Structure formats: C-alpha cells, structure tokens
C-alpha cells in the first residue's frame, strides 16, 4: 500500500467503503420508511411481448453472472488449485460459462433498455433514477463482457484472480491491496468502480426488489388470514411471522 497515490486510495478504498456504508444505511432507511415503495414496479401491464423474452433472459443471465463472481472473486486461486483444478481448466470453464451468461445478460438488457427507451407506455413510467440504474448496469455489463469474451475466451487471457480478486477480498479482511487493482487493465477498473457505484444507488432504486425473492411461498399455507386479535403492531423492519394457520394459538 506504500506506493499508492492518495487518489488511488480514494478510489479503491474510499469508494468501496463509502458505497458499502450507503448500501447498508440506505437499505435500513428504505426498509423502515418506504415499504410502500418497495416493489419491482412491473411494466408487464403496459408491454408484454418484449418483456416475455427480455426479463427472464436478463434475470437468469444475472444470476449466472452473480454465481460466477462468487466463485471467481470470493474463492481464492489456491482453494481451487488445492482440490486439483489447474488454472487453465478453471479459466477455460469461467470463460465459456461467463460467455454464455454474458450473451444472455447482454441480450436481456438490450431488450429491456430498448423497451424502456422506445415504448412510450413504458417510458412514461420511468423515473430518472431508473435511467441512472439502467445506464450503470449497461456499463457494468459491457465492461464485464469485454474481458470475458475478448481476453479470456478469444485472447491470451488475463488472470484477474491475481489482481482484482485479492484487492476485493482485502476490502473485507481490512487490508485491501490498492496497487494490484490500480495496475489492472482499465476495463477491469471501470467495471469494479461502476459496480461499487451501483451498490451505493441500489437502496434508492427499484433494485431493492431483488432482496424480496419470496422463497418462503413454497412452505406457506395457501390462504392467509389476518385477525384483529393478532399481536400489537409489528414494528416495521422486524421480521415477525405474518401468517398463522387458522385456529393456531396466538
């Protein structure tokens, strides 16, 4: 860290921690004060033909990309090496799987952004923050795809797990290595910086819908009853059980 300039430290240490702080505080604030605004703001009512393809492709592509990031950034190279996966095999796998995800996600976001921009019914429901989030996503996706496809799949390859990943993990162990990320190719830098920005705007956009994936629907009783005899009001933000079987005790 000794030979990092102060602007580098601002960008690669200040920005991440600031973004994380805004991310956490912003979500707490939004959850407590804006339950009513916490939604995906679906536009399927207005337009369904493009959404039918764009939305599932984009979302499933995003989930694949998120999985890839978890594997590529959070798992250090020596762990995969320890279980006997050589670097070139790993890189080949990450390049193909990453390319598939990239194609999906890019196709999806192009369709979604296209309908936001060119379908009047959808455009009229779009706020400035929606455009901002979409542009950021587009930037992140493009700068994420360029290295995946052109460097790792078609080009000579670049081992981001030796530069980007250690810095990223360092942020969480309290010892980020600024020089490694600062020496990475510029696409990686833009990708990483834009990603931190999106964490910071996340709580203020429709992206909060991602945290509400209703998995517990699989176990819930179908019919939900509420009774005025239920407990005193649950404070917003506390995770009280919100249903009970009819007849079950209070």
């Amino acid at each position, binding site marked *: 860290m000794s030979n990092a300039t102060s602007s580098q430290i601002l960008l690669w240490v200040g920005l991440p921690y600031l973004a994380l702080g805004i991310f956490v505080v912003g979500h707490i604030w939004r959850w407590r004060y804006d339950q009513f605004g916490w939604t995906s703001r679906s536009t399927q009512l207005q337009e369904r033909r493009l959404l039918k393809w764009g939305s599932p492709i984009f979302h499933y592509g995003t989930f694949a990309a998120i999985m890839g990031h978890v594997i590529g950034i959070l798992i250090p190279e020596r762990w995969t090496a320890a279980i006997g996966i050589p670097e070139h095999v790993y890189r080949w796998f990450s390049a193909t799987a990453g390319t598939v995800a990239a194609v999906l996600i890019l196709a999806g976001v192009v369709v979604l952004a296209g309908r936001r921009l060119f379908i009047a019914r959808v455009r*009229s429901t779009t706020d400035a923050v929606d455009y901002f989030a979409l542009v950021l996503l587009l930037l992140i996706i493009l700068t994420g795809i360029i290295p995946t496809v052109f460097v790792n799949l078609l080009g000579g390859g670049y081992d981001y797990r030796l530069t980007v990943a250690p810095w990223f993990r360092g942020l969480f162990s309290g010892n980020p290595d600024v020089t490694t990320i600062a020496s990475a190719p510029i696409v990686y830098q833009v990708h990483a910086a834009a990603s931190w920005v999106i964490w910071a705007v996340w709580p203020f956009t*429709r992206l909060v819908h991602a945290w509400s994936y209703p998995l517990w629907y699989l176990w819930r009783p179908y019919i939900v009853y509420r009774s005025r005899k239920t407990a005193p009001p649950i404070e917003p933000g506390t995770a009280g059980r919100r249903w009970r079987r009819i007849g079950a005790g209070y």
Partner: protein
Amino acid sequence: MRVMAQMAMVMNLDKCIGCHTCTVTCKQVWTNRVGTEYVYFNNVETKPGIGYPKRYEDQEQWRGGWTLDRKGRLQLKSGSRLRRLLSIFYNPDLPSIDDYGEPWTYNYQHVIEAPLGTPNPSAHSISALTGKDVTVGWGSNWEDDLAGAPERAHLDPNLRDLQERVRMEFEQVFMFYLPRICEHCLNPSCVASCPSGAMYKRAEDGIVLVDQDKCRGWRFCVSGCPYKKVYFNHRTGKAEKCTLCFPRIEAGQPTICAETCVGRLRYLGLILYDADRVLAAAATRDVKDLYEAQLSVFLDPEDPEVQAEAARQGIPADWIEGARRSPTYALAVKHRVALPLHPEYRTLPMVWYIPPLSPVADVVHAAGYDPADPDAVFAAIDAMRIPMEYLANLFTAGDTGVIRRVLRTLAVMRALMRADQLGLPFDDGVISELGTSRTDLMDLYRLLAIAKYDERYVIPAAHAEDAGRLASQHEQLFCSLDGEGGPGMGGLGPHGIRAFRPARRPDEVAESETFRDTDGRLRVNLLAWKGNRDVPLFPSPSNEE
C-alpha cells in the same frame, strides 16, 4: 366446526338498469387516481358479451381460480407454487392493458382556448398512459347494451356450448346487466397466488385485502383471480382491489356501490360458515355440485348449537344477531333464489346473484301472453333454452335445473302477489310443487320489493373496543393509501401525464379566496371561498373593470 362470519352481498339482476352509478361512485371514491385510470373495482357488463377484461371468464386462456389435479386435490389453475416462482420475471397469464382498454382523457384546454371561428373545436382523445393521441378502441363498458354484439358476443365464454343455436335464434335476443365487484371468496385464489403473502382474508368479516406495504408487485394475484378483480396499479407497482369499502362496513354502513345503487338491488349481510369445511367443498368433484357444496358450508344462524359455538369462538352477540337478520342469508339459503357467479372456479365466491326473469318475461309478453300468468311463464322457461343454458353457465356451472327452479319461484311469487292484490283466485298447487309456501313467498316478496334501507343492509359495526387493534392489523405507522400515488393523495402523474394536465395558474393559490382570471377580472375561488363578506360571491360590476 370453526365458525366464521362473512360479509356477503346479493344483487337482484332483474332490477339492474345498467346505469353505471355504482361504477362511477366507486371510481370516485377508490380509483380516481393516476395509476388506476383503467381500474373499476365495480363494473357493469352487458351479457352476453365478452366482459372486462376481455374474455376474463375463459380460464383455459387466463388460468385463474382453482382446479383439481389428477388425484382430485385442489390446485391453482396456473400450476404449482414452483412454477409461479420460476415465471416470476414474466407472468405468462397476465392480461395486458389492452385487454382492459387503454385509459384515455381529453385535452379540454384545447377546446377552451380555441380561437373564435366557424369550425367547432374538438378535443382529441389522449392516452392517460403516455399523454399521446390515441384512438379509443376498448373500455370497461364498450359493449354497453349489446353494442357490437353481432361481431363479438359469440366470443362470450358462457356461450361456448350454444353458439350454433345462438346464431340461429339471434332474433330472440336477450340481454341483461351484470354488475361485478370482488367476490370476497371463501377460498380466494388471489390470496393463494400471492408469493409475498401480502394478500389476506380478514378473519372477522371475510373481507379480502392487499397489504400495500407487503405487496412487492409480483402480479400473480391479478392472474390468479378468475374474476380479474385484482388490478395492478401501474404507477405504484402494487396490486389493488375492491375493499368491500371496509371503513364503511366497520362503521355499520353499506358499501358505496350498494349505497348509491339506483335500482336498490343490492343486499348486504353476514353469513356464518364453517371454515373447516371450505376446502372439502371447494374440492367437490363435479362442478355442478359446487353450488350445493357451498350452501352446505354455511351455518344456520337460528340453530342454537351454531349460536353457542359461535359465541364460544368469540363472535360477538350482536354479530350473531346480525347473521340471523341477514338478508343475504335469507336470499341465498332460506329462499334459495340467489346463486354464486361461476361456482366452477372453486373459489366459493360470496357475492351472489338472483338471476333475471326479464329475458323470459319479455318473450312471454312479446308472444301476447300475460307475463304474470305462471303457466305461460313456465312454458316459456322451458322453451327458452338459450337464456336458460346461458344463465346456467354463469351461475350453476351449467345445471339448468337450478335456474329453472329459481325462475319459477320468482314467477310464482309475482303471480301470487298479483292475484293477492287484485283479489284473483290462485291455485296453491304451483306453490307446493316448488317446495315453498305462501308465507315464504310473501316474505321473499317483502325482501325483493319493499325492504327498506335497514332491511337491505344489516351490517353490525366492528366492535369499538377492537378498533385500535383493527387499525393496527395493517401493521403500519401511517395509512399507506396516503403514500405517493395512493388514494389519499391524488398522486402525481408521471411526466407524460402531467404534460397534458392544464397547468395551475401561478396566481391561483389554493387557500386564496379569489384569483385573477386571464382576462384580468377578479373571480371567486369557489373551492376555497369561506363565506367571507369582503369577498362577495358575485363580484360587483366595479370589480369587473
């Protein structure tokens, strides 16, 4: 036995004149906002017709409500829970705004500001979604009074088995109005479809609501309801539905749509039912048995055992008393003239309908017979296959026997009253054939013809000692309806819509009692005038200078 109370409605279709007053008053109260322009919690359809949204009754297309799986178990028509979670990014069964009709308005300012000239200025229709010019092509009452019926009515799903005959006998056209609100079902598929658990049925009065704070906009309730009575607010991204005007019901007042109904054809009252039997009834194998199955879920409020059990389970005494006086219980169970709408959806709907006799009476009249002569009407009832089968497809899953019995009861009631009032002889044989009695028919007549306000609406108020807790069950610190875009706020439009709203003149401040018009004259702001004498309602001529 688990005794629950349900606030139920009955509508007497013979009396509906299709005036849409109910629609308009409900709209003014609940959906007069940006985001819900296209939404009608109450709408009135002309039948036959394809309805609002288009062909909503065809569950092979929209996949709302319940069905039985191969083993005879109840399952949502749209498939398993997992299927919904996997298709959450795009709901394949959701109607589009064009199925409801794109909402529109007019640029009235254009007419007001048009220069003096010979051609009359006209305001073109503008989409309320985009603010751009649109050609209006569909709406909730597009088919009023059979408008467009020759081209479209044959698409009505209720005509599915009788298309051939309808085409042949279209000279014998029949029509009637069907006012529709949410059914506040005993087995609501909207609630079951909601992945967030934001929808719930109130245990006290059975009203089905959407928790605006818990709704995440996954929009499965909209497609899950076979009656399409949950709507998506495209501005707030949340689902909204008919509330059965719960703030009024809690205060012992009828719903807006019932209160303002011109035909006075709506009845509101409690029905006690056994919640433990709901599931079995909804899973009845033959759809034609669903009507009887639903009746078997209801509990007799006169039965001392039921009363004791209800009291033991915490239903207040005045509610049990209300259930005994309930007009909806009388019409649905005692007289058996009210029928559920589309019982085959298996949601056990709780807004019931007295099928109209008028299509039959009209034919009898046209044939030169006396519509009050039960023999002529009976013969017509038997001869008129099409209205009979059509009504059966609406109310009994195709069982014409029930429809015939109900219409005969109504016909005999009319004949009996006519004979009674004119001192004519009446053969009691037809009465006993129907399994009813003179007193019952007199009672039915009273209920249908002369019941006053407090007999049509028997609504025990929510208990005051529970009021605080009642409000608190909504689990929020403020009323979410007051949020941006909520009914309490009028809501801000997206820029596309704001753009065509006439801008407020800068000097027109809401609190100010006067404002200066564009021509320079001082005028009184009627909305803010407080009767101040210094600000006379009619400005003096000197003011005009």
